[in-house]
């Protein structure tokens, strides 16, 4: 099913490095990262904290700039945030003074989408994420799962075709997390989005993605790029799922052994 999608190279990252200073010491957050992502792919970036996965995501989003190397979307250098790349934050970052409906309408309003079109879009995505009953509620009245649904609808209503997700389900309870994973996959399959998803859960990465990019820390770099060929919907308790979990786990922890030695 990804066959026909995986043709257009949407995102291209070449020799990307990022350094910053922390208490006078130079930290290399990313070293020589190369990654290309096709339209419609679901990519997970996985790694221990400090491996630079969030930094990489923030560079793609345009919140931070690389020290050297390039990141391009559709061949165009990324220099600032743009509505084509929608970010879903772990702590939601909803506007607390806006209702669910107004939060979802924020992007289209800012970009001057005509009123009728805007309304259709917003109402549509309220339904897509199943928040019809809460359309007029304020964020503080919602559960974590509902807030994250609003955050997802907010970037979708803004016509983002690349959705960047920074451990979006990390703060949710296990049941809500599983439901949102399934809903996200459902939306992804229906819309042809490209998703770049940061997580530190191996299971979440295998369950969701076409490719799992394993990163290792100090300096942050890509350890391996693993295509997941398991048929969907995936069964987390199946033997081949467990096999993958073991293999990726070993890759993820490989740097520990090296460092201890």
């Amino acid at each position, binding site marked *: 099913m990804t066959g026909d999608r995986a043709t257009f190279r949407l995102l291209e990252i070449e020799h990307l490095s990022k350094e910053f200073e922390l208490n006078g010491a130079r930290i290399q957050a990313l070293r020589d990262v190369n990654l290309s992502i096709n339209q419609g792919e679901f990519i997970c970036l996985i790694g221990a904290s400090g491996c630079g996965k969030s930094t990489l995501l923030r560079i793609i989003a345009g919140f931070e700039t690389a020290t050297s190397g390039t990141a391009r979307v559709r061949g165009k250098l990324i220099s600032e945030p743009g509505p084509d790349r929608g*970010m879903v*934050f772990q702590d939601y*970052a*909803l*506007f607390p003074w806006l209702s669910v409906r107004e939060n979802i309408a924020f*992007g289209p309003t800012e*970009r001057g989408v005509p009123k009728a079109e805007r309304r259709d879009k917003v109402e549509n995505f309220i339904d897509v994420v199943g928040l019809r009953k809460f359309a007029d509620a304020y964020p503080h009245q919602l559960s974590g799962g509902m807030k994250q649904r609003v955050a997802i609808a907010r970037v979708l209503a803004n016509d983002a075709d690349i959705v960047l997700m920074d451990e979006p389900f990390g703060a949710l309870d296990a049941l809500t997390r599983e439901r949102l994973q399934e809903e996200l996959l459902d939306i992804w399959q229906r819309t042809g989005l490209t998703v770049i998803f940061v997580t530190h859960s191996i299971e979440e990465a295998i369950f969701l993605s076409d490719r799992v990019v394993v990163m290792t820390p100090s300096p942050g770099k890509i350890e391996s790029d693993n295509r997941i060929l398991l048929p969907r919907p995936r069964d987390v308790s199946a033997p081949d799922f467990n096999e993958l979990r073991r293999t990726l786990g070993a890759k993820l922890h490989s740097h520990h052994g090296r460092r201890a030695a």
Partner: protein
Amino acid sequence: MKQSVASIAAPATVESRPAATTTPKAHRAEPAEGPRLEGRARPVLLALVVPVLFVLFWEAAVVYGRTRLIPPPTEVAVMMWDFAFGGIWDDAFSRTLHVHLLMSMSRVYGGFLLACAAGIPLGLLIGRVRLIRQLFDPVLQILRPIPVTAWLPLSMIIFGLGGTSAFSLVFLGAFYPVLLNTVFGVRNVDPKLFEAAAMLGCKGSNVFRRVVLPAALPSIFTGLRLGLGFAWVVIVVGEMTGVPQGLGAVIMDARTLSRTDLVICGMIVIGVAGFLSDKAITWLNRRLLRWSPQHG
């Protein structure tokens, strides 16, 4: 006295309520009426306990203490009536309450609104624009500890004796709380919200309108409340010298004339006026900040 207030107020509300919600749901509304009314009347009654006890203590202290310097509450009440409606003493102060009150209010609200007009935009800029912060912040930090009352001599030189000087003091008094709380509110906006706004296509001056202002609004309102409260404090000092009309002038003149009952009347009027204007701003606060869990 407490007895009579309570027994007059309670039946009046009982009668007016069902009348307002008449016919269709009348039979359903009625049973719910009892506990809800009690729930509403309770805080009012409780709030009256301490003042009533205080007034009783005051009366007793004056009567048994045999002081002639402090009038008993009954005399103050008579004075208040005369101050408001006249017909008892018929002197220079009779029936002048509204004149002084309006004059003080115009200075308080005028100075306060001017302080808002200057403090909120400046606060937004200081909070958000580095260059402006670096330009203004040190100066403001040095000026801030100077008590507003210390400006009185200087403002009398600059603006002359009279209302303008009082007005300028009110402005200064309200300005700092409004400004500092606005700056605080802007500085404390969750940086993620700026990223979220940028990612959704919100740029330039729209960021102020769509993110900075609403996000800082709870803090700005704290500043407004403090500022308006402070304006009422400062107005008395401002009106104490060279101002013919205003509640501060009344208190000062009454003191010179040894009319302590009138001094107390002036104090009570200021207290009530300050209380009511705080109520008004809290009401506005609740309406505008329905979204905020702390203010809702």
